[in-house]
């Protein structure tokens, strides 16, 4: 064919032309295109921080302070070796080998369970009780009366026999894995972003229905989607059991004329029409709309409270999302009936009937409002079924208010509590131009000089979680019992995974720094450095290549530099020096050590920190036999003070 012929020749023809005429032109165009796709610029970050007047080292520390849980002792040098641009690109890939982390996580089996496995192995206590009663192990009447101790014994023996475990263990493993990942993952940005997006799409263990599905929520819904398109993340959260339960959408039922009529007819034709109709009427009264998710998805997940929606939009959106519910995960709690219904229809017929079954998500057409709706001026035909909700979420995900809201939130997390408008505008534009691509929005941010502004350096206040993790990282600690750190993080004011409101923790320094919590930050520093946190081992001497500092002054200077690199600590050192160079310091410290008595530990409410008499003996022996012991105490105190000092509260 002639057409074919000319087609075949075209490339050669084009090539010739290109070589002679268009090459410079194309080069120019591609430079223009690539400079707008900053991601392709291999030195974009370097240019941005040079423009802002930072040295390579300052920039490296800032990058680590923003995109990791704090630098470890050698991190800065390693980062400089790799190069900032390349390091950031690697972090966006999140494919670095994580053998160390994997080894540390190996003992935590439950964090890999599916929702179904979790429901099977960690049932709620009332469910266990019912099972035990059914199996005749526990007498129904003995539950409330009689010997509580005996009852508990029977109860736990029954659980053991059935291979069931208490829910607290699930949460313990889950919290431990977060601490280990934050401390040891090489793919730090992935963990920081997982924290960010979890908090953005907050769910809470305080919600009884949602709680047990939260580990899988973080693992399968949040973590794999932290770098991708915002829409994908939004839809994944909308369809997750954790979110469906937490914001009640699982229970929201729409007015469905056809279905009501069919059910009424069925009742009328049943064997006992009077009873059946009564039951039907009662059921109708208890069925209907729940606005909770529809409101929060607009206010908190996408548009923002000033994003331009009305109460009517909320109600209509709730109607669009009716029928979005959870696929029955266990037989318990009405699950058995649902499974029976679905089995009757048969899995092969679900799609034909308008159901959508996707993992733990189920769209139930009989619960869906089949009237037309209008949300934000977009019309949704009542016949749309599942697709109505998917379309609504897609509209929300790409809305200009969403782009602005998400960009502001990211900038607040990664730049400062009050990020400059100019960078929010750039990020918003990238969001809108690239279909909500989170990686590109982040790239725009780090490639902008505003990100590197001197005003932003050290401006973010560490949350209690960030403080604890940055401290164990800075000291290169061996965290064997991560849950011990959790009790400190709570005391400092952040009960992670238990924040009740859907806003998530506020991202403002003012929220974290308040009177009571501040003292506990200092107490944390002292406890960590003096090895009083069980299962968290540190080796202060090793941090300084096993050189013992000559004096307290030297200790302060040396360890100040290790823990807070590139910070101007001269004021801190001047301030602490008179106290630390007190000629009687060593005497005082060793006397304090000698004076340790079990009763003195009583001032402490933390049982786990109390010294037994045996331990006290050991301490006393150490101080007399080992002359460097007082020195170690001094060093621990210096390091504790540095961690509790104002500078270390910032990043």
């Amino acid at each position, binding site marked *: 064919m002639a057409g074919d012929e000319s087609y075949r020749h075209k490339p050669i023809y084009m090539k010739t032309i290109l070589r002679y005429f268009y090459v410079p032109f194309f080069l120019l165009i591609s430079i223009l295109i690539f400079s707008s796709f900053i991601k392709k610029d291999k030195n974009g970050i370097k240019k941005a921080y040079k423009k802002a007047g930072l040295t390579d080292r300052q920039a490296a520390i800032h990058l680590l302070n923003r995109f990791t849980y704090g630098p470890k002792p050698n991190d800065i040098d390693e980062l400089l070796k790799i190069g900032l641009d390349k390091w950031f690109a690697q972090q966006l890939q999140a494919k670095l080998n994580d053998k160390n982390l994997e080894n540390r996580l190996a003992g935590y089996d439950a964090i890999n369970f599916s929702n179904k496995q979790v429901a099977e192995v960690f049932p709620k206590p009332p469910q266990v009780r019912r099972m035990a009663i059914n199996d005749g192990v526990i007498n129904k009447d003995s539950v409330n009366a009689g010997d509580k101790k005996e009852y508990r014994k029977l109860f736990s023996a029954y659980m053991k026999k059935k291979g069931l475990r208490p829910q607290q263990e699930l949460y313990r493993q889950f919290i431990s894995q977060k601490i280990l990942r934050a401390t040891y993952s090489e793919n730090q940005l992935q963990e920081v972003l997982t924290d960010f997006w979890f908090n953005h799409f907050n769910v809470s263990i305080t919600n009884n229905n949602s709680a047990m599905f939260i580990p899988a929520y973080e693992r399968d819904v949040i973590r794999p989607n932290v770098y991708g398109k915002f829409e994908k993340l939004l839809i994944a959260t909308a369809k997750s059991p954790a979110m469906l339960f937490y914001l009640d959408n699982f229970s929201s039922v729409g007015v469905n004329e056809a279905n009501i009529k069919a059910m009424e007819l069925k009742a009328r034709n049943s064997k006992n029409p009077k009873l059946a109709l009564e039951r039907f009427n009662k059921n109708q009264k208890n069925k209907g*709309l729940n606005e909770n998710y529809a409101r929060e998805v607009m206010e908190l997940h996408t548009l923002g409270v000033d994003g331009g929606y009305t109460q009517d939009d909320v109600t209509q959106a709730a109607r669009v999302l009716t029928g979005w519910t959870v696929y029955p995960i266990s037989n318990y709690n009405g699950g058995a009936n649902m499974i029976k219904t679905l089995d009757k229809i048969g899995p092969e017929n679900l799609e034909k009937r308008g159901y959508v079954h996707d993992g733990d998500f189920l769209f139930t057409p009989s619960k869906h409002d089949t009237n037309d709706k209008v949300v934000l001026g977009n019309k949704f035909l009542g016949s749309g079924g599942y697709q109505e909700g998917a379309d609504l979420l897609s509209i929300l995900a790409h809305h200009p208010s969403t782009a602005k809201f998400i960009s502001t939130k990211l900038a607040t997390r990664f730049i400062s509590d009050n990020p400059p408008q100019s960078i929010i505008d750039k990020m918003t534009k990238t969001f809108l131009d690239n279909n909500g691509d989170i990686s590109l929005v982040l790239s725009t941010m780090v490639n902008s000089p505003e990100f590197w502004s001197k005003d932003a350096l050290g401006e973010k206040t560490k949350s209690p979680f960030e403080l604890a993790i940055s401290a164990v990282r800075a000291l290169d600690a061996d965290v064997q019992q991560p849950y011990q750190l959790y009790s400190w993080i709570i005391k400092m004011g952040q009960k992670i995974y238990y924040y009740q409101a859907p806003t998530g923790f506020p991202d403002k320094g003012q929220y974290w720094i308040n009177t009571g919590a501040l003292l506990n930050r200092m107490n944390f520093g002292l406890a960590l450095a003096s090895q009083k946190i069980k299962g968290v081992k540190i080796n202060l001497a090793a941090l300084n290549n096993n050189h013992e500092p000559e004096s307290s002054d030297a200790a302060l200077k040396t360890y100040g530099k290790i823990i807070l690199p590139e910070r101007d600590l001269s004021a801190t050192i001047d301030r602490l020096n008179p106290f630390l160079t007190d000629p009687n310091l060593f005497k005082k410290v060793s006397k304090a050590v000698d004076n340790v008595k079990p009763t003195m530990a009583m001032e402490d409410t933390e049982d786990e920190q109390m010294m037994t008499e045996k331990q006290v003996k050991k301490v006393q022996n150490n101080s007399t036999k080992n002359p460097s012991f007082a020195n170690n105490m001094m060093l621990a105190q210096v390091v504790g003070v540095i961690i509790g000092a104002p500078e270390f509260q910032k990043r």
Partner: protein
Amino acid sequence: MTSRRGFLKAGGLAVFGIGLGGLPTFVTQAAAQIKQPGLFKRRKTLVCIFQRGAMDGLMAVTPFTDKHLAAARPTLFMSAAKTGTGKSLIDLDGKFGLHPSMVSFESVFKDGRLGIVHGIGSPNSTRSHFDAQDYMESGTPFKKGTSSGWLNRAVGLLGHDAATPFQAVSLTSSLPRSFYGDNPSVAINNLQDFNIKMSGNAKGANMAAKSFEDLYDTTAQGLLKETGKDSFEAMNMLKKLDTKNYKPANNAQYPNSSLGNSLKQIAQLIKMDVGLEVAFAESGGWDTHFNQGTETGIFARNVNDLSESMIAFWADMGTLQDDVTVMTMTEFGRTVKQNGTGGTDHGRASCNFILGNDVFGGKVHGKMDELAKENLEDGRDLAVTTDFRSVFSEVADKHLGINKDGILFPDWDGGHIGMMKG
């Protein structure tokens, strides 16, 4: 701020003799202090409780004669009629009935110490928890930019400097929005935690405390510096207190709940005369979208905790009752109609409770029309008939003697509704 600091260093600390050394116990000092009214006069205390999540005012204090409400809430409506099974509402005045789980409120209401305002809310119709709380706590329902909270401004209007860091205390793990601002205020979650500790090494802890105090005193970080100062002053004052073995007066039984513990600690601070004038506590779990229950269930548990905590506090105050007023607040109410899942969605007006001897109690104040659809706001919610600011400002005026409404609630010139005596 500086004037307070000056006062503290020159007056407060010198008077109390609090420091790191082994001075006489604080309690003795404080007791001696009462005898010197010129220097430190016992002041009145306002205790505010924020019920976060929006309390269903129509279930707490139900207009039980309203047939529209009965119809809108087929499974949630409770009646005041004594029926054979289940508990009924406590009839207050033939029109309103108190939820049966708040039975401990009955006697203080009948004694005229507990007042209720129904139809209270914000003129801003937002149904966002976070905006509505923000507006209520800043006290400026149409301005997001207000940096201070209304209780912080109230502290500034008390007309005298703080004698101690405890003039305004929030029993929360972080500072509430109501307390933001330039006037001194502290957040304390647990009085027992208020110390620098090194287990088994009290001397070391003392030395560390000294170095921390110095470091925070000289830091250039404003927030850390101020908070640090407050922390150490408060810590030094609390040092000698036996917070662990506190015994409430009059056999008061505080519920072992977050609110109960907060009010218990507020009672301790009031009795120890640390100069507490504005106290703040929180109560959660009011966002009852799902199965809120009737005489039992989530809502019943919440109102039970609220009323039991407040009544325990009131009993514990004993002879100090004249000096104390307790006021509750919540960001908005809930839909008149129950939703499809046995709960209620975000609405508009709710009610609040004010307990004290200067309250015009025994009465449900405010105005509530019949709940016919045409009387509802947006055709769905209990209409706001009393601006929350008129109640807050009346309580601040009559109990604390603050009458500068222009500063307390800028942009507002409404009047009082006469729910306080005097």
